């Protein structure tokens, strides 16, 4: 147990260092980043048909919100406020970055979770089947389809889904998160509207990650099938259900490690999915903040995504430590 705690502490320390590295890196980028958000806003307003005076009136105040001081001062200040978990305010909207991130994270985490769970269940079931039938044509085809889906970029999946269900046969919306007319809360209309808008993103997450599950589950089952226990059990004529339970339990455990990593990967994939379905999550936020040069929001979103990936890695590793006694012992010894 002590070993596990020490391992966790080590991970956390390294995670913090990682976050610091990423933060410093982002700061360097921001400091050499060209472009003036205020001037861009001004020209965009002209493009939208504002008169120069109106555009000037709209943007005049923004000049005051430019960061002041040298890059180093800004950096130290930012680090200081980050220690108090204060991410600053958006350069463009003046809203607290943590508020903005909180709002956006909701829209990413829930669909990603649902999509992952869906694909996990599907992938595990099909993976077991593919492993058992691995010498047959069907098992082969399932495995191949798994490799293909794992290789296929999620934006290809999203675009194809959008082309089918939003363009050729327009039954599902391609933008937004929920119809504003429904009172938010626990009522059927609201939830249905949420669901209707989330179907395509969730389906994309599910389809593009389920290939990986098939492959992982198949290879995991194949390993377990080779165990002496199974051979012995089969020879002794044990009940199939008992054998199946043994296979499932031992083959699924390693997959939970991948589960955490898969969620982390989907956080990146969300950038495409949310852009294509105009879904207001973290990925969309990152793209928009880059386009508007909203550097505080950009830094915040990038930090949050990195933190999510780091946490997922730690969770995966800790889980692995707990289920695999060899690693646990190694940790104790170290």
């Amino acid at each position, binding site marked *: 147990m002590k070993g596990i705690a020490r391992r966790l502490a080590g991970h956390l320390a390294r995670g913090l260092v990682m976050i610091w590295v990423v933060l410093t890196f982002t700061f360097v980028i921001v400091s050499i980043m*060209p472009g003036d958000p205020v001037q861009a806003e001004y020209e965009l307003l002209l493009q939208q048909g504002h008169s120069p005076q109106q555009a000037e009136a709209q943007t005049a105040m923004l000049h005051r919100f430019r960061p002041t001081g040298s890059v180093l001062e800004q950096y130290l200040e930012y680090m200081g406020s980050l220690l108090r978990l204060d991410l600053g305010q958006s350069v463009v909207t003046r809203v607290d970055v943590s508020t903005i991130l909180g709002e956006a994270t909701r829209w990413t985490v829930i669909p990603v979770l649902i999509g992952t769970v869906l694909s996990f269940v599907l992938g595990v079931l099909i993976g077991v089947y593919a492993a058992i039938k691995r010498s047959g044509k069907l098992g082969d085809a399932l495995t*191949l389809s798994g490799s293909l889906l794992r290789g296929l970029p999620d934006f290809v999946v999203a675009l194809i889904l959008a082309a089918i269900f939003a*363009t050729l046969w327009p039954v599902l919306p391609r933008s937004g998160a929920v119809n504003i007319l429904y009172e938010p809360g626990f009522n059927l209309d609201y939830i249905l509207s949420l669901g209707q808008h989330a179907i395509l993103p969730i389906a994309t997450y599910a389809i593009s990650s389920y290939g990986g599950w098939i492959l992982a589950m198949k290879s995991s089952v194949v390993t377990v099938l080779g165990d002496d226990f199974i051979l012995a059990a089969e020879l002794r004529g044990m009940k199939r259900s008992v054998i199946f339970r043994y296979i499932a339990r031992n083959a699924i455990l390693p997959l939970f490690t991948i589960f955490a990593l898969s969620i*982390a990967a989907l*956080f990146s994939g969300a950038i495409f999915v949310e852009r294509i379905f105009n879904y207001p999550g973290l990925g969309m936020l990152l793209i928009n903040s880059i386009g508007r040069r909203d550097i505080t929001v950009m830094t915040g979103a990038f930090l949050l995504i990195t933190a999510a990936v780091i946490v997922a890695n730690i969770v995966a590793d800790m889980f692995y430590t707990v289920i695999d006694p060899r690693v646990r012992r190694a940790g104790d010894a170290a």
Partner: protein
Amino acid sequence: MSDVAAMTGATVTRATLRRNFWGSVWRVLLRKPSRLLGVVLMLGFAFMGSIGPMLYDRPLPRDPSVQFASPSLRHPFGTDFQGTDVFSLLVIGSRYVLLTALITAVVSVLLGTAVGLVAGFRRGALDAVLMRITDVNLTIPGLPLLLVLSTVWEFSGAWEMGLVLGLLGWGGLARAVRSQTLSLRERGFVEAARGLGLPNRHIVGRELLPPIAPYIAMNALMSLIVAVYAQVGLFFLGVMPVIGENWGVMLNRAVFDFGAMTTPARLPYMLAPLLAILLLTIAIVLVVDAMDEVFNPRLRVE
């Protein structure tokens, strides 16, 4: 995909191996025609990216009166907004995409193999440092990082893009190569070679690398897919200049400028690069599948 347990190379003599190799490749391909398809597709893409663009005179012929024509025999994917043939754009655009992917694969394979071999072979403090760096490489979310990077760097050429993607994508291979190097060490033939007084260069080049090579080759193929995903994706998102000839730009313009999602008539322009990516993925997956069986005879027994 493979645990590369088949470390048979060390026991069989090299000449026999080579003779048997092509035979087994052929048998493996014949066993499933889909694999032949994969190889043919791969060759097709290689042709498309290397020779293809040279087959067209520049500037491309166009007919401004037929913008976004429907697919026909003359224009298999229709025409674009200026009346240029979409298929020729696809061919010309393949060069950047495939070249970038190739560079990415080379960079990430070289780096990943080197780091993995050195870490596994040397062990000790160097190993610890290299593995920390590998962890960082694996943990940094690549795509968001590229988005942030794109604000200061235009990745204008295939070389720059490929280099950056390669630098971001070697961690997984390094880790795998290291663990295999470690397991080879455990089998003792590194110690044996050392005992014979063979130089490190020989041990790494002749004893360690050959058994891992198939795994590395398959990894290189898979990293082609990842590279295509990342670069086409970046152009698609529009954080890169949406100019020039490549599939990502075509996708971006189809969706965000030309209304491919609004007007079914413009769908072919979007579907052309999508189909190309799909076929490329299929080709690589099928070839990797075949390679897996060639190098993993255990699978063949079943």
